[in-house]
């Protein structure tokens, strides 16, 4: 069962998760939370942290258990692992961060259904050693966190005229930016911008991919 693996550097794995396979801007999955919670940097950041934690722990667990999971029933097992870790985050937040939990609690529970988490478990963690899985999950979660913060930066700045709750712009804000429409606009424009950077400086071909939620 154990296949000898080629060596992958940990840094490479993290970089891969943040840049080359960024969940939102490159793989174009988990767009639903990226639009739903990114109306303020605080919410975006906290959901990003929660996802980072869940993603890392799920990948680690799957990496540890992968030799004991029968391939035929792997998806249900992954789901069990994911929901287990999501419950941990959910309870932790409910206990220690009540105010935030009231605002984004719903989205914390919905992390169970994020395509990105299952995708990393299925694509990477079930096939790689536990330390590699750990760093892949960390990188991927970090990429998601960074993407959420970038999106919410623009949406909060343009849609409310504030940053982290402090008033920055004193002009009339663009109301559309805090609505889902504005979220799609910002995600699309940022995606185009990162594609442009990729094509211009790194000779890439731009992201393609089917959406998921």
């Amino acid at each position: 069962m154990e296949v000898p693996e080629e060596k992958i550097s940990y840094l490479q794995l993290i970089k891969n998760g943040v840049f080359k396979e960024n969940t939102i801007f490159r793989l174009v999955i988990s767009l639903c939370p990226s639009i739903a919670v990114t109306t303020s940097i605080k919410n975006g950041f906290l959901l990003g942290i929660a996802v980072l934690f869940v993603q890392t722990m799920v990948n680690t667990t799957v990496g540890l258990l992968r030799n004991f999971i029968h391939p035929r029933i792997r998806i249900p097992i992954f789901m069990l692992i994911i929901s287990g870790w999501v419950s941990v985050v959910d309870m932790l937040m409910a206990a220690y961060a009540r105010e935030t939990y009231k605002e984004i609690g719903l989205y914390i529970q919905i992390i169970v259904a994020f395509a990105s988490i299952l995708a990393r478990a299925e694509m990477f963690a079930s096939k790689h050693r536990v330390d590699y899985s750990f760093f892949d999950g960390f990188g991927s979660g970090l990429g998601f966190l960074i993407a959420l913060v970038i999106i919410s930066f623009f949406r909060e700045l343009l849609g409310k005229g504030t940053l982290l709750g402090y008033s920055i712009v004193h002009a009339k804000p663009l109301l559309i930016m805090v609505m889902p429409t504005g979220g799609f606009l910002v995600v699309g424009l940022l995606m185009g911008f990162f594609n442009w950077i990729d094509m211009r400086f790194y000779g890439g071909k731009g992201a393609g991919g089917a959406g998921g939620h």
Partner: protein
Amino acid sequence: MAVAKKQQELVVTVSPHIRSEETVSKIMWTVSISLMPAFIMGVYYFGPKALLVTALCIVSALFSEWLVEKMAGREITISDGSAFLTGLLLGMNMPASAPFYIPLISSFVAVAITKQLFGGLGYNIFNPALVGRAFALITWPRAMTTWIEPTAAFVGMDAKTTATPLGILKEEGMHKLLEVFGDKMSLYTQLLVGHKAGSLGEVSVIAILIGAAFLLYKRYITWHIPVSYLATVAVIAWVFGGKEGLFTGDPLVHLLSGGLMLGAWYMATDYVTCPSVRKGQIVFGIGCGFLTMLIRLKAGYPEGVMFAILLMNCFTPLIDRNLKSKVFGARKEAGK
């Protein structure tokens, strides 16, 4: 020049040999000119502010077109009139009292995002001017629904704000509308001439119809979309528009008010975003009419032309694919 002409006579080319005189830029400029009567009526009723709003829209549209084409390394096409027309239409869809940043930003959204980011002229899915207006309406709902009373006076007094005929009809009903405008005849006349509150280019129905007749005569637009659109609106307004039951509505009020005429003749007939098949154009018009009346009668907004046309724009590829005429003599492929 003469030498070049001589040489051209000897050049052998493949078909087509007979080319139409029409070019994109000629059509765009002609459509812009045909909008002038409606625009002049708008300026007449709402004063120099109307002129300013439209000018800002046009300048911003041209600048956005230039900027994006420069950045993308495309050919600069600001002189072909399409950005000018988008700016003009967007300006005519704004209330004359709009503060200066609304035309600037929404015109940028219209040209840079809706048109250029999708690939430039001919590649956009949605009508750029309408997306610009939808953006403005969602972003600044208060400013975009503050209508000033038409005064026809070029003096700098503060304009009085008022409701559009459709707003009155929606909020208070037909009797209030008659109270404001006098009797039925005077209501129809004022709606037709344009003495009413509304976006600056949509008020004068008669001026829009003059422009549209010119376009029909030049064969730049066909009757299919506008007529099916207006007929659907009239029928639905007649059947469901009345308060006292079925078949008591007033179709003329619905036809003459709001942005319906401007939308039906100028927005829905945009070459890029409407179906090119004749049958499809009729389906498109009926769909627009249905959605417009659905929004006017049942939804939160008093006017639904903009959202109706934008929604039908999404269906354009679908309509075109399903209703395109059969190739003569083509056989059905096996298994299909």
